[in-house]
């Protein structure tokens, strides 16, 4: 307990608090600019952090990390371009709600959900970091394999009617994930002799392309369409009132709870990542929505501007940020690629994350944890300022000019990840592919999950089979691997549930108003 107060004392120094606030502000802005994400921001910032004392540097990084995940929702809602990968799903319901003239409501839901998710997660972190760290240790190769299967199964909830197209998308992601040096065999695959592909298709540029560049093409299409049909430009939605009615808050509470819990759980597990958390949370929210609200008076269709569709991913992604610090600080195991950069920043200041950190530099370790709590509190008012300012300055730029600016930022962002020109081609190529998929009606979500989870799934399944000497039964062994068996069972349920309810829906007499539950987004 004393240590926690020491952490607070460390954080409440004016200089540290100032840098935390600066970090939150920077994170919100970085997050809200498509093409630039927290990973790229850190790559630029880490060299600069060398000159700062450890507590100030880490406070700044916590602020950026925390707020970037929230800031990504702003362009996702306003112009249907996710600012960061974490806001990928927020575009669906968020932009749909904004187009009905409720942009302020959508933004408000997104920010409040982010803050609530982050607060819940950092409180959990504060109270039971050591216990959570032990859960992470229960995850071996078999459990990790089951986890990736569970993550990929959340695709089922994302399939928009056409199951085949969803499967094609997931397969595409998994196939691209096989490019590069194979972890299992140590041999290069599908690199076509290019050294640029040895590590696989560079990930950050690819994401920049899939979200940012593809959005540029879509904006261009809109512009041409408007010109051809000589319609006036559809202007950026007016923000309007940002007040959340108390009934809505009460209604979203369970979603916040579930999504934060999912974010917390996924965040603690190394290698699972933020994208998996938002998909799982969105999937759970969709199931709940269909049970309780779908088809009722005044309720939008799922994927067409529901509050839950915004709240779930936003609460989940901020819950991940804080909880990914659990394995990092207590065990020295980074939970995702962004938190891995904390290790580098800490090492620059002679701090090694792990059990010794709490013993030797307890005040710094606890300060980082407390900083997540404070960052989320600071973020709430700041977010509303940034929304007003950003939307007034950035989004008031004419669409045609904005297209150029976003494209430029995407190219810069892709290049700055490794200072390699090849990355720019990757971003442009990925943008073309994503746009083509969009034209063909193939959803992007399953492909992203396949990309994120592919290599890990392959390696963990291969390693599990290595341990079991080739027996696949290891994945459903309730005695030695109960967690894995439970996750496999849960994944199976995710696949079977829509089938069953689909069959049941067919038996009902026609005209009950209940559409098939599989269709969404």
């Amino acid at each position, binding site marked *: 307990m004393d240590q926690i107060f020491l952490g607070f004392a460390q954080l409440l120094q004016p200089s540290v608090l100032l840098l935390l606030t600066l970090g939150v502000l920077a994170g919100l802005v970085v997050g809200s600019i498509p093409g630039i994400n927290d990973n790229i921001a*850190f*790559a630029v910032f*880490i*060299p600069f952090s*060398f000159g700062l004392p450890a507590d100030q540097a880490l406070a700044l990084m916590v602020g950026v990390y925390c707020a970037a995940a929230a800031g990504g929702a702003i362009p996702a809602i306003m112009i249907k371009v996710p600012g960061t990968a974490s806001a990928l799903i927020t575009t669906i319901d968020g932009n749909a709600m904004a187009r009905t003239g409720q942009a302020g409501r959508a933004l408000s839901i997104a920010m409040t959900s982010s803050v609530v998710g982050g607060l819940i997660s950092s409180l959990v972190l504060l109270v039971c970091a050591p216990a959570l760290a032990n859960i*992470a*240790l*229960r*995850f*071996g*190769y078999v459990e990790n394999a089951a986890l990736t299967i569970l993550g990929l199964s959340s695709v089922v909830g994302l399939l928009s009617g056409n199951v085949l197209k969803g499967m094609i998308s997931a397969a595409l992601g998994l196939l691209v994930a096989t490019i590069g*040096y*194979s*972890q*299992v*065999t*140590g*041999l*290069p695959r599908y690199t076509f*002799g290019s*050294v*640029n*592909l*040895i*590590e696989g298709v*560079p990930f950050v540029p690819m994401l920049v392309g899939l979200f940012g560049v593809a959005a540029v093409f879509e904006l261009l299409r809109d512009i041409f369409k408007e010109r051809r049909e000589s319609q006036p430009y559809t202007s950026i939605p007016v923000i309007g009132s940002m007040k959340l009615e108390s009934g809505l808050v009460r209604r979203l509470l369970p979603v916040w709870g579930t999504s934060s819990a999912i974010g917390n759980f996924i965040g603690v597990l*190394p*290698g699972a990542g933020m994208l998996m958390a938002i998909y799982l949370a969105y999937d759970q929210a969709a199931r709940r929505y269909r049970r309780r609200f779908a088809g009722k008076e005044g309720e939008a269709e799922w994927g067409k501007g529901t509050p839950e569709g915004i709240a779930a991913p936003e609460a989940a992604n901020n819950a991940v940020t804080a909880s990914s610090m659990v*394995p990092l600080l207590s*065990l*020295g*195991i*980074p939970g995702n690629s962004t938190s*891995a*950069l904390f*290790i*580098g*920043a800490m*090492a*620059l200041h*002679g*701090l*090694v994350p*792990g*059990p*010794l950190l709490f*013993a030797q530099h307890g005040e710094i370790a606890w300060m980082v944890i407390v900083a997540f709590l404070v960052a989320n509190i600071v973020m709430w008012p700041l977010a509303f300022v940034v929304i007003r300012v950003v939307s007034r300055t950035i989004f008031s730029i004419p669409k045609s000019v904005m297209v150029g600016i976003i494209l430029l930022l995407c190219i810069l962002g892709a290049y700055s*990840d*490794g*200072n*390699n020109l*090849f*990355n720019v081609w990757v971003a442009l190529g990925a943008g073309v592919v994503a746009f083509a998929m969009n034209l063909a009606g193939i959803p992007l979500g399953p492909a992203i999950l396949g990309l994120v989870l592919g*290599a*890990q799934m392959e*390696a963990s399944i291969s*390693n599990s089979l*290595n*341990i079991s000497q080739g027996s696949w039964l290891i994945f459903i062994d309730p005695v030695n691997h109960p967690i894995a068996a439970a996750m496999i069972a849960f994944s199976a349920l995710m696949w079977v549930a829509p089938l069953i309810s689909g069959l049941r829906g067919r038996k009902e007499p026609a005209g009950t108003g209940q559409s098939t539950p599989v269709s969404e987004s």
Partner: protein
Amino acid sequence: MMKSLILGLVLTGALSNVALAEDYPTRDIDLVVPFAPGGAVDVTSRLIAATANTFLQGAEIVVSNRAGGGGVIGQSFVAGADPDGYTVLAMTSSVVTNPQLKGAPYKVSDYTPVAAYNLDPEVLVVPANSPFKTAQDLIAAARQAPLNMDVAGIATSHHMAGIALSNATGAKFSYLPAKGFGEQLQAMVGGHVDCGLWAMGEALSHAKSGSIRILAVASDVHDESMPEIPTFEEAGLGIPIWATFRGWAVPADTPEPVVTFLSDLMKKVFEDATYQQKMKEGGYEPTYRGAADFQKIITSYAEQTSTIIEENKMGK
């Protein structure tokens, strides 16, 4: 007449080269780190650059990250750079094996070694609650049935160390590759593997905290902070030294005085007390080996690995 003219020309050429080198450095020096910011090479390079810049006047060492292709992108960039001493590579052991394993478009001989600043010996680690108390216990068990070994990846220097260990002792291992040190640590601390071959720099702080145990270190000296750990030879593992290295290298034709200047600069950095302390805190044992010694380390590492790569048909 002709002869002396040629001699004169050669001398003038050589002298002008020296004159150029004497002024060195007149502008900023690019220290190319072929990995993303935040990793071990990046962190140590930034520490060195910051210390070295206190000794330099009128020029600075600037770290530039050229990541991608598992280091090959940045490494190739330096191999093709002007040999004027203004492009320096943060060189790691992977430069030696990448041409064979990853088809990198350069040769080790495309670089002139400047100095090594960190040698990271291989360590044999087990989970804290492992039944194996000594390296010999572990080898004896691995001779009976293959043990699961946690390594950074197939065809990495750690995997090759495992093969060398098998060749020397007859022990059998089943290799479980991981992506990144975090995954390896998780598998080890959680007790999901029997043993692992890791870099000392990564293992040490976790051994000190008691979450893992180090059974032996593949070095000819004991670690200062944990002298009770036996060397591989003392533990009867039959491999004298197996260490990856970090250092500086420049393109092959860089003038000798420039190489000497940089090598001496690294020595001054090494002798700096703050640098020593910061490196140790970060888990990197500060070392200094001049150009000639560094060349020996590289040659010996190349000999150790190339046979294993050929025998096991790696990278093909």
